[in-house]
């Protein structure tokens, strides 16, 4: 790794100030993606602003809204009794990210801000219509995930929390790359009051929704209905582990499994 300056501010304001004044400063949360990138010398920021000292790791529920602090670790989300009660699909998703050691360090805010095309959380945010809360504003998930490793975050903007609706009938299923264990195709299905939403990760350049499947599940929230929807492979990723046709097939299979899991939760 190349040298950098390290800052561990005690307040959001101080963190924002550092990010505003230092050119090429990066936010450090769990470091699960940023540090490997820096080790490989693919990134060499001037400074890191570590969020570890900020009080952002809480998980709370009020009036049907679940707020997960940006620095909540995956392991804590997975083990949260609040989530087990009101949003079990997200707890289960968190419990399946990476491996135990990754879950002990990785954070929801880091995962969301990074928007890796194979990350799990973006699917949950998009399907649940979550809001990304920053030090400046709240951004709805539909506007947040812009493209490959790209989000609506402005330079220096800090994710502070994610706000989810409390929905029991919502679940995630993924097919993992046998090598990296990242999602080759991950599908989050959520039965919201306004209708079913389905979001796919791992299969395309960035997380995306499946309107045809949402319509089908609105009519019949069953695994069979999910599987009956033809998925167009056009535009899906193709690599040595899965070509687009296989990924398209897996999206349907995982959607069916996610629906089955959501029914089991509800």
């Amino acid at each position, binding site marked *: *790794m*190349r040298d950098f300056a390290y800052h561990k501010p005690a307040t959001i304001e101080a963190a924002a100030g550092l990010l505003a004044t230092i050119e090429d400063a990066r936010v450090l949360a769990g470091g699960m993606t940023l540090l490997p990138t820096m080790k*490989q*010398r693919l990134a060499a920021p001037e400074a890191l602003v570590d969020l570890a000292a900020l009080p952002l790791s809480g998980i709370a529920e009020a009036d049907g809204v679940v707020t997960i602090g940006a620095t909540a670790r995956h392991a804590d989300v997975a083990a949260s009794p609040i989530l087990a009660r009101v949003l079990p699909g997200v707890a289960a998703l968190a419990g399946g990210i990476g491996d135990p050691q990754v879950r002990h360090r990785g954070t929801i805010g880091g995962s969301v801000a990074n928007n890796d095309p194979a990350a799990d959380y973006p699917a949950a945010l998009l399907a649940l219509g979550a809001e990304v809360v920053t030090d400046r504003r709240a951004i709805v998930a539909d506007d947040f995930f812009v493209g490959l490793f790209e989000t609506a975050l402005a330079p220096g903007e800090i994710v502070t929390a994610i706000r989810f609706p409390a929905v029991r009938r919502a679940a995630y299923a993924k*097919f993992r*790359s*046998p*090598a*990296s264990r*990242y999602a080759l195709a991950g599908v989050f299905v959520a039965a919201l009051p306004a209708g079913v939403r389905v979001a796919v990760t791992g299969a395309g350049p960035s997380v995306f929704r499946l309107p045809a499947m949402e319509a089908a599940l609105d009519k019949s929230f069953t695994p069979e209905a999910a599987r009956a929807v033809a998925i167009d492979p056009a535009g899906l990723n193709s*690599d*040595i*582990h*899965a*070509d687009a*046709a*296989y990924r398209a*097939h*897996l999206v349907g*299979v995982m959607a069916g499994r996610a629906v089955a899991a959501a029914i089991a939760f509800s």
Partner: protein
Amino acid sequence: MAEVVGIGAAPRRKEDFRFVTGRGNYVADIVRPGMAFGAFLRSVHAHAEIGAVDTAAAAAMPGVRAVFTGADMAADGVGGLPVGWGIVGRDGLPMKEPPHPALAVGKVRYVGDAVAFVVADTLEAARAAAEAIVVDYRPLPAVVDMAAALTPGSPLVFDDVPGNLCCDWELGDAIAVDKAFAKAAHVARLKLVNNRLIGNPMEPRAAIGEYNAGTGQYTLWTTSQFPHVVRLLMGEFVLHIPQHRLRVVAPDVGGGFGVKQFHYAEEAVVTWAAGKLACPVKWVCERSEGFISDAHGRDHVTEAALALDAEGRFLGMKVETLANMGGYLSTFGPNIPTNLYAPLLSGVYTTPAIHCSVKVVFTNTVPVDAYRGAGRPEATFVVERLVDVAAIEMGIDKAEIRRRNMIPAEAYPYQTPVLVEYDSGNPRACLDRVVELADVAGFPARREASAKAGKYRGLGFSTYVEACGLAPSRLAGQLGARGGLYESATVRVHPTGQVTVLIGTHNHGQGHETTFAQIVSDKLGVPFDQVDIVFGDTDKVQFGMGTYGSRSLVVGGAALSKASDKVILKARKIAAHLLEAAEQDVVFENGKASVAGTDRAKTFAEIAGAAYVPHNYPLETLEPGLEEQAYYDPVNFTYPGGAHVAEVEIDPETGVVTLAAYTAVDDVGTVINPMIVEGQIHGGIIQGVGQALFEHGVYDPDSGQLLSGSFMDYCMPRADDLPKMTTTTQSTQCAHTPMGVKGCGECGTIGSPAAVINAVVDALAPLGVKHVDMPASPGRIWHLMRNAGLAQAAE
């Protein structure tokens, strides 16, 4: 354990205490005074001419001590990396053996080929400087596919190797095979790929070079399976350092599997750089760097055919293989797909006529060499897949067709038509045992249960034999080996009766410190905890060929057994003197020399004491001291074998193959430590399972980039991918090794790929699937199922 622990016991391993307490001593752990750090700049092109290499900016960076290129080494008279085995083609001409400089000269031939080496005060400075080197690459078209490489007009890896053909090699009687095929009632044919593997021992390679200007002594610490051979190859052929001025130390090594049994460029570069700069130079490979610089394994494409009579008896076998060498010849590269491959094509069967031809091919890929099993898994895969194809096509039960063709126990020693003579074995007994242990009779019910759950289930056999205990030097020499393949051991008895063994094999996980101590404890009657094993240091150990090819116990253990016998012989002479008896009346057993038929005896420690304090000692006829050395050169290979059964379940929705059960019955000869043997078999099986289900070194055919260049894309078997295995041994004794041992390090890896793939094909047989290439990854299986479904729908 303050008592004798003999052959067949399972004491806890001696080496484990240091490992479980974090006190292992691996090369990366070693710190030398004044040590500098090295980093390689490696080619990003698969094939390119190298123009100017501008090192000025890099050399001027802070902390940089030197930047070296291939031209610098050539100017200093440094030689190329030698090949330890030369093969001869069917035309009688030797293989093409182009130069292999430690740092590339003129051209780079694969992504990862080392171009320059930076030495700096810190690793970070060395890496930063390596990035600042400007290389004027002139990219050339690359070729990674063997068939393409052999096609006229293909890019040439070496300008003076036409058609990229290193050697066109053959073994066997083509005329006899043609006759067999002419009278066959059925011919089974198969085209298959043996997938490229990347060995990935968990410890990445590392090397530290050091030069003592006061004594002229060089030292190399390296992650090697054979330090004496590295000393010989590097000292004599590359750096021209006399053997007595070069010490090579391979301390604790974190797994080898063949990957660490070659002399690598990096070893020579750090040693040479240490001499140039008069400071120790350390290089530790990063994993992703290892992917493009550790020698790879396997990578064959084969067309094979088996001729059978109407009863399913094998009449003849014909095998044509393309074997990838990569961009240069690695130390043993050409030997693996030839001498360690074709002689195993008889398998455990009485096939009377076999012919094998192998085209050994250069491509723009990482050099290919031995990986656990080395040639023998490839042969077993061809034979055992073909047998299954024949059984299916002829409607014969897969166990029955094997029984019908197996070499009967009473036919040993058995001369195969492909060079080797099996000394011992009983494949039928292994097969019968595995059929029982794996509950093959209960399989239809299990298949039914899987079907009810919507899954396909399959069962596959592999009955195999391997040649190991490398190797009889005379035969190896006839086959092109450029060195001997014996082993040596010294048994040093201390004045107080404890024993230090100095042995030329190398322990990197196999448990030698324990197994060898058991042999000595058993023979000399010395308590197990009073025997220590020393290895891996050319300044301590007399000589040795190292550890590979399941040879350590077979060849090294035999040397140790012989040396122990010499100690006993001398101890009896000393005891005869001390006991005032005739030597022939002195019996040595249970750690005591006694006069037969009396209670007069001397303990081993008393004898040792007399040898080192020779006040009452036959100095006229006997030298003082009690230390004996033996070299052992085997008269034949050993032939472990066995029968394996794999059972798989396939999810038709996703194509995921789950290994549901694995049962292995292996004939490894005499078992010294059953706990260690079981562990070796477990690990071996899973490496073969890895090849069958998960692992694949993949190159982009156009760019020549390695697409599976990290653990993100190269799938290592993990705990949650695997079932609990059932393993046991069913041994016959080797006829020619002192203890009857055969070796067990590779049998799992050799037996398992065919068993797993045969099970996968069995599971998919209802869909009309006839063959599945490795690895049987989910995507590949899903496409096979879909195509089979489309084909069935079209019918």
